[in-house]
């Protein structure tokens, strides 16, 4: 799943550690999400969306969903 987390974070001048602290998760979690190694749970995705005052789909892009639509 692609996401805009790194872009949103750097726009605000936050480090990964600073974002992690705001979300109450580890810096490794932020890094894993940014690099696409980990897709967050729904509650964490909502927390991220709330923090950046955006909708979840404005941050996370469901590639598998798009591929399925393209295949139809």
């Amino acid at each position, binding site marked *: 799943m692609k996401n805009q987390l790194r872009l949103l974070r750097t726009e605000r001048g936050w480090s990964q550690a600073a974002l992690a602290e705001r979300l*109450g*998760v580890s810096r*490794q979690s932020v890094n894993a999400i940014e690099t*696409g*190694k*980990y*897709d*967050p749970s729904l509650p964490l995705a909502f*927390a991220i969306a709330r923090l950046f005052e955006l909708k979840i789909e404005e941050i996370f892009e469901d590639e598998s969903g798009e591929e399925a639509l393209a295949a139809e």
Partner: protein
Amino acid sequence: MAKGNFFRANKRYHRVFWPLMAAYVALCFGGSYVINQGWVSGTVATAAIAIAVAAPIIGVFLVMLRLVEETDEYTRLRQLKSMVQGALFTISVAVVIGFLQLFEVVGQFWTFWFGPIFFVAWGLAQLRHHFWGKTV
């Protein structure tokens, strides 16, 4: 997923982990010394010392479990996957050694080594998750 959970959980873990490790080292040396000096006799007393020496390690396992329960979702998933892989590797080694012993290919194996084998396998599994592949 309350704010700061991960950091509080980590602090709690270290606050208990290091005293347990210190107790383990002290009990290891102390227990061996007491046994070697012949200050205790009888199976029950010797077994009590053996269990006392092992107790901090059991405590570490419990603290690790609590950390896994309290930490953030990504760390929890990574730790659990690594633990399961480490445990499966250790059990596999135990089964192979068991059959090697049964068929008299190898002699006695010190079962004490299964602890370190698990911890090393767990650590290697964590490294694998850290450097390669998608976690979920």
